[in-house]
């Protein structure tokens, strides 16, 4: 479904991504783990078209999307829940969800998916007329996820959905991620919380300072000595 082939990405002179390749197959949850500053967000931003790689290519759904503008990529069914949620705080919950469906024209389908989102996140329904900026961190994460789901993605990129949330909420969010995947959406999940990520992923990559240093099935990585030392606390 997604093949990233040897991409190099720069911020001015800073070489942030140094030849990363990765692959996500239909129906999988793939985790991308690594410490702060490793280049996880940059990788997702590049896949989504917010940044252009200097070299390398990104193939999605058998089409080369390298350098394609971000808004076109979304309409191909590839959506991202960005780091820090980035909900439109000046707009209501409902308007945020409508923005998620921006590329769609099928009114009935949008209404149906809106109902589904409210079923998965009943707390959003209670607050649908509220400004997104007044929601708690957990609710904002739910809104960011719901908003992305409104685009009816085939592949969902998620950047640190557990960031800044209490452990109980993290569990809830991860359960929802599993449900989203079970209902047919492929997921590329970026996490610093490697424990949680590996517990739900099929496959994982470890990123260190712009390079992939390890990859394998989530089980293999979870039991690997190196990963346990560096990311799972021993």
């Amino acid at each position, binding site marked *: 479904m997604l093949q990233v082939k040897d991409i190099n990405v720069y911020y001015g002179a800073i070489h942030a991504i140094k030849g990363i390749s990765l692959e996500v197959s239909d129906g999988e949850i793939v985790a991308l783990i690594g410490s702060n500053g490793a280049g996880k967000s940059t990788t997702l931003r590049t896949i989504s078209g917010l940044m252009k790689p200097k070299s390398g290519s990104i193939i999605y759904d058998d089409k080369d999307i390298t350098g394609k503008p971000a808004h076109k990529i979304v309409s191909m069914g590839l959506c991202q829940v960005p780091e820090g949620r*980035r909900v439109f705080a000046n707009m209501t919950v409902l308007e945020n969800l409508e923005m998620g469906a921006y590329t769609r024209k099928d009114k009935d389908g949008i209404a149906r998916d809106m109902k589904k989102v409210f079923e998965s996140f009943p707390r959003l329904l209670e607050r649908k007329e509220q400004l997104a900026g007044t929601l708690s961190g957990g609710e904002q994460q739910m809104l960011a996820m719901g908003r992305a789901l409104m685009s009816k993605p085939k592949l969902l990129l998620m950047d640190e959905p557990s960031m800044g949330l209490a452990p109980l909420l993290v569990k809830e969010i991860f359960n929802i991620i599993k449900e989203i995947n079970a209902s047919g959406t492929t997921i590329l999940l970026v996490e610093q919380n490697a424990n949680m990520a590996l517990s739900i992923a099929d496959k994982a990559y470890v990123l260190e300072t712009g390079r992939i240093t390890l990859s394998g099935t989530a089980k293999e990585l979870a039991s690997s000595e190196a990963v346990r030392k560096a990311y799972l606390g021993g």
Partner: protein
Amino acid sequence: MDTFFGQLCQQLINGISLGSIYALIALGYTMIYGIIKLINFAHGDIYMLGAYLGFFATTALGLSFFPAIIFAMVGAALAGIIIERVAYRPMRNAPRIAILITAIGVSFFLEYTMILFVSPQPRTFPSIFAATVYNMGPLVMNSQQLVILISAIILMTVLTYIVNKTKAGKAMRAVSFDADAARLMGIDIDRVISTTFALGSALAAAGGVLVGVYYNSIDPLMGMMPGLKAFVAAVLGGIGIIPGAMIGGIILGVVEALVSGFISSTFRDAAAFAILILILLYKPTGLLGKNVREKV
């Protein structure tokens, strides 16, 4: 006391009429600032362009008021789209100061191109409306003031509807809040920015036509002072905040009218800049501005 009160009400009427024109121009400043953080110094010249388009429509094309103002708005909207496309878009990632200087350049370009084509001489705007004067007790309101008020109210209502209720308007708010997040929702921000320039320019053009109707005289440099004042109005209400521009424009118009009615019209222009200084000193985010929210 009675005459004082009458005079006060009279100046309020004058001030609100003038202020609603400032408000129309200020809306464009604030919308464009909201979406690309640019103080579009050429905005006052779009207003001038609108006045000339209205002049051309009424004289050469013989249109009446309503089609003429629509003509001017559409023409200015196109001009706004082209200016953004040609002058500002290539500078999108340049330092803020570079694009500000570009805007000043565009302003000069519009002023002197107009001088080249229509000469620097002021033109007499045809009187489209019979100059009826309505007496309401001691108060006087003329037909032009009525037209300005009604037009401004309609335009602001339509704008508020567009921004709050339509898909394009919601996309504008989304882009102005967080452009990258908007792109991740599939919003083509270039298109949204074009729409914003079109809307803002159309409103300024409407202001230009209304001023032509009110003062009967237009010239290629007529946009400089109202442009600056509308900028003050936008800052007064809180730059980037749409209702702020409306309120700021009206307040500015009223203050000016009061100053010229009760003190001296010589101080009229000074009042606007005194307001700017005061607001920058005491509430730089403007009347409706919240505490500055820095994105992380």
